[in-house]
């Protein structure tokens, strides 16, 4: 006998997910077809029930949010939205100026993969815009529903919870918008409003909590980190016969490496960590990791919370004060690089104590590329002859950051690294790469198993483009520079019938190709 069900709270109703979700990808044909918005789907989105778990009360309070849905949630949501409108130019402008031209409607991977009309970027943004119009605009107050205004009721809040967790904040729609409207800004604001009324998403909020309390997303304490690094050192020495070190908390080291914590634990992430270590070793660099800053990622961005994002980034600032390095280098991670490149200087800068000769922070790909150009490290391409490689541009790197001095360096530098590490390199369909790249489907806080259907749907366009080059050119390795991409593809590739080891890191290839030992 099942226990009698406890009475459902409003929060339960809002976050209640459909059961029996389809978590298998469609058949791969190599083509990305735009789904038709059918009548039946207009009434009820196919993914309206694909909702992530709600954050538990203790996770919410740890971040300073109400423990559960507040009683006056409608009023509180409107109040918070009003505050955000005063603070974010992006939100204010983007809620006002959309003309619903439709240019973005076939650009989002979650729409292409699911056919759910609410995943068209403009339709997603309208979910928030309805509320904005209702409470903040003359047009909405005068004309109501005719102008698309709607009060924030239980149904709409449920749709917010579903669909703002089906946006990976990848900014692809923004590329095709005549005004550059960035749905990432809108989805961040919506999540901030939801958290402010006590409606948080478990995966993201729990991860931020671990980052703030323990220092990394994995919740890995310094002792575990020491053990892990030691065992990785042993593995490298066993395999290559060279004592490559992964130093931790070395005060006065020249280079501080901040990398996503998945690099310490997960596969294939750890292969890239080994790659960085070999590069530093061969360059003769005096480098270190930091237990205080054992995480480059920062999920504070995903929920649009400036304070939490800054608080988490402060750990990096403290690590710099502790280690006193000359240079700051960041490992392979998409959203982390966006925050490091675009936001760190604002959040925790200026980096006055670092050597001004080097960019602060610097991407590991920039660092390695510079060594290759100077001939400071040598790569043996034959070491990767078993691979025909392609490259997936990570959304946050492609559209929200840069590498090198010139615009677009974020596209050329990783490709140069790959080409220097292997003989066979193939590009995917240019409509799916560089600034037009698709998100892997797991970014922006969606990398959680209960919404696997969303993740599988979101991966569809990339999977089709990958399938096309696997078929035509025999590609068997998709190089990545993002911890989320790596974890997402490892989980999703098998659901499309593709072996999971097709996904790997750029520095995994570099690490295999690098010639260790004495220099000529």
């Amino acid at each position: 006998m099942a226990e009698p069900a406890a009475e459902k709270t409003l929060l339960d109703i809002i976050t209640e997910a459909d059961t029996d979700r389809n978590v298998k990808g469609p058949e791969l044909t190599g083509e990305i077809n735009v789904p038709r918005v059918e009548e039946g789907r207009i009434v009820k989105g196919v993914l309206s029930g694909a909702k992530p778990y709600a954050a538990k009360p203790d996770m919410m309070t740890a971040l300073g949010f109400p423990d559960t849905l507040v009683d006056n949630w409608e009023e509180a949501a409107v109040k918070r939205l009003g505050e955000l409108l005063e603070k974010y130019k992006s939100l204010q402008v983007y809620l006002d100026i959309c003309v619903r031209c439709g240019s973005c409607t076939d650009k989002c991977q979650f729409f292409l993969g699911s056919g759910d009309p609410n995943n068209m970027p403009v339709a997603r943004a309208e979910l928030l815009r309805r509320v904005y119009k209702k409470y903040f605009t003359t047009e909405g107050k005068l004309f109501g529903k005719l102008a698309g205004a709607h009060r924030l009721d239980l149904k709409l809040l449920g749709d917010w919870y579903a669909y703002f967790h089906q946006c990976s904040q990848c900014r692809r729609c923004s590329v095709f918008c005549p005004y550059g409207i960035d749905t990432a800004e809108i989805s961040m604001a919506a999540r901030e409003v939801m958290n402010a009324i006590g409606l948080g998403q478990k995966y993201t909020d729990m991860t931020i909590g671990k980052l703030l309390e323990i220092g990394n997303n994995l919740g890995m304490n310094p002792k575990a980190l020491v053990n892990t690094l030691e065992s990785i050192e042993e593995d490298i020495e066993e395999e290559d016969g060279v004592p490559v070190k992964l130093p931790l908390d070395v005060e006065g080291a020249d280079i501080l490496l901040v990398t996503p914590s998945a690099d310490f634990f997960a596969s294939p992430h750890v292969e890239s960590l080994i790659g960085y270590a070999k590069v530093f070793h061969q360059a003769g660099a005096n480098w270190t990791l930091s237990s205080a800053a054992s995480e480059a990622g920062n999920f504070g961005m995903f929920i649009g919370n400036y304070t939490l994002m800054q608080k988490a980034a402060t750990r990096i600032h403290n690590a710099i004060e502790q280690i006193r390095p000359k240079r700051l280098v960041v490992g392979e991670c998409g959203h982390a690089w966006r925050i490091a490149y675009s936001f760190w200087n604002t959040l925790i800068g200026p980096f006055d104590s670092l050597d001004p000769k080097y960019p602060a922070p610097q991407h590991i790909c920039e660092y390695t590329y510079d060594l290759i150009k100077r001939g400071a490290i040598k790569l043996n391409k034959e070491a990767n002859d078993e691979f025909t490689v392609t490259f997936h541009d990570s959304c946050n790197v492609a559209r929200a950051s840069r590498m090198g001095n010139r615009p677009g360096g974020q596209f050329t530098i990783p490709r140069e690294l790959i080409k220097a590490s292997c003989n066979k390199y193939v590009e995917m369909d240019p409509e799916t790469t560089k600034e037009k790249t698709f998100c892997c489907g797991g970014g922006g806080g969606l990398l959680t198993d209960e919404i696997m259907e969303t993740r599988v749907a979101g991966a569809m366009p990339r999977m089709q483009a990958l399938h096309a080059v696997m078929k035509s050119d025999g590609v068997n390795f998709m190089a990545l520079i993002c911890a989320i991409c790596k974890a997402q593809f490892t989980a999703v590739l098998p659901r499309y019938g593709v072996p999971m080891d097709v996904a790997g890191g750029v520095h995994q290839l570099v690490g295999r190709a690098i010639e260790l030992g004495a220099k000529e």
Partner: protein
Amino acid sequence: MSGLTLVFGLFFYLSLAIFLVGFLAKTWKYAFTPAPLRIPQTPAPVSAAGVPVRMFQEVVFFKSLFRGNKLLWIGGYLFHLGLLFVLVEHLRFIIAPASSVLNTLVTYDLYSGFVLLAALTFLLILRVAIDRHLYISLASDYALLLLLLAIASSGLLSRFWDGGHIRMNLPQIKAFIGGLVTFNNIGSVPTNKLFLIHFSLVMLLLIYFPFSKLMHSGGLFFSPTRNQVDNPREKRWVTPWVKTRPTATLPSLEQQAPAAAAAPVQETAEVEG
């Protein structure tokens, strides 16, 4: 001054005032709402000089729309181009005597009028014919297209109706509009019904303008993804509303170690990027 002239004169000034004050107030808000973080959509210009170039491509060529949807681009571009020409050609109702350049342009005004009408019709067709566009369209989107269509139709019609009655009445229209604009010698309002309809619809458009999506005309210039320089490493951006950095003090390494030793080593395979 007749009662009708007074009514339409006041209508004109009221509409214009709402438009100007509303437009400026909204644009002011866009300009002065703080932008906390650097969020240019990259690849972006790495120097301030590159931003006007990027903006120019967007404003003059609708570059991003071109990338996004060619049919929409054709419709949208022709509409805006037609509108621009029609607006310039309307200067003949204000400037007296009209310049020779304007006079040359005016001889082609039927073309711009028809381009405007055709582009609007095309945009309306796209809105209902493409399933995705139909789904996202609001009543207000149709209303605006229909209002613009009505304005363009009534304007064009006046060139044919009654043997081009409006054209013959040009001096009277000029005296009325020109007078309103210069606050001087306002002539009596032409009583041609088509003119009054056209004129009133334009005034409605002006009133609706600042409260509507038409504010994209001003807002576009303040879009952070488009107007920011990509130089966050070189030049520190300060969040206007953040006064101080939080000082989350960390325990020293020595303090951290015992607590860490007591904590269980997490061995889950769950991956969090």
